[in-house]
């Protein structure tokens, strides 16, 4: 069990910044530290399920974060005292220029997709997952993810420029 705990510490250390980015991109930045805290707690509670392979462990952690987000969307809110430390962190302020308006249009188009479809697009294009890995994070078959992703892009192509619609 000791090695498993060390493995989880390593996995959390390797992915914590990316997990924070993931949560900040999908919810209010002020809530992201609490959601990250909940993600960490759930990960420790499910220590026995931690995959041995580091990349699989990373997928597993993102899957947990997604579950926390879904609970959050259902109205489950927790405040973590330690999250206040993160909330006041200077580096959590945006370090790059805010996206131009055209990006807001794109994000809006993504948000109008069916939720699972939108999340698939975000995982691939915002978080850098392959479609196969995104499917694992979402807990769906890769074949389903591929067809859903293609359908999402068709819809986005139409939404963003009707002139090039098939």
């Amino acid at each position, binding site marked *: 069990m000791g090695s498993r705990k*060390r493995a989880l*510490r*390593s996995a*959390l*250390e390797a992915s*914590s*910044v990316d997990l*924070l*980015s993931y949560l*900040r*991109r999908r919810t209010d930045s002020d809530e992201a*530290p609490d959601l*990250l*805290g909940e993600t*960490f*707690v*759930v*990960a*420790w*509670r*499910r220590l026995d399920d931690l995959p041995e392979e580091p990349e699989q462990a990373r997928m597993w952690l993102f899957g947990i974060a997604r*579950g926390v987000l*879904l*609970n959050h969307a*259902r*109205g*489950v*809110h*927790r405040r*973590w*005292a*330690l*999250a*206040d*430390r*993160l909330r006041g*962190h*200077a*580096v*959590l302020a*945006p370090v*790059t220029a805010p*996206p131009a308006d*055209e*990006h807001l249009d*794109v*994000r809006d188009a*993504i948000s109008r997709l069916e939720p699972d479809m939108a999340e698939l*697009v975000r995982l*691939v*294009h*915002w*978080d850098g997952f392959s479609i196969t890995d995104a499917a694992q994070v979402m807990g769906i078959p890769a074949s389903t993810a591929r067809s859903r992703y293609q359908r999402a*892009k068709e819809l*986005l*192509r139409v939404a*963003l*420029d009707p*002139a*090039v619609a098939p």
Partner: protein
Amino acid sequence: MTHTPDHLDVLLTNSAPAETASSPGLRHDLAVMAAEARTASRLRRRPLRVAATAGLAALLVSGAGTAVAASVFDWAPWAQDPDLAYPFILPSGRACEARVAVYDIESIDTNGAVTRSDPANDSDFARHLRALDLVDQADVQASITEVRQRDTSVSYVAVLPEGDLEDVHATQSGPTEDDVYAAAVSNAVRDVINAEAAAFDGGHDYTGEESILCEKVAS
């Protein structure tokens, strides 16, 4: 604006909100949070419950001297003199008690490993908890609502026949009322301690131990 598939890919990728910039300070704080989450997971892992016969009048008391089930359970050495003792009765009638001890954090290394202060020396925060009457601060009903909203399709907290509380894999029947309430009280107590820690001396990081034991079910 013309969209080829490649162009659409670029548009989608560029639409990502700004990512979080890493820094040594942030990584340190994240390591601290990960370490504290482990403590918090243990506090949730062995939840508590309030006496059903007295409604929600929880017997949340401080200090080992007021614990009522001392002779019933086989406590670990650290729990012989806890900073918080919480006796309660499950809806099914089983007697339970939770015991919590808190310790200051002496150091946290770069891997997030926590070294706690000497357990033999009470910390100011431990003395603070011992001096409090927290009964009115545990918002159990709010916690019940939260617990009922949890996804239990993978696992949930259950009160085992042997008297321990543990995460168990999901079952067809799902958590019992005992399980739900136990998890809710665990949350409520943890929230009380975390709230006290946040307010103590401008914000206090702590680590701790928690144990909850219930009467065994007669076989």
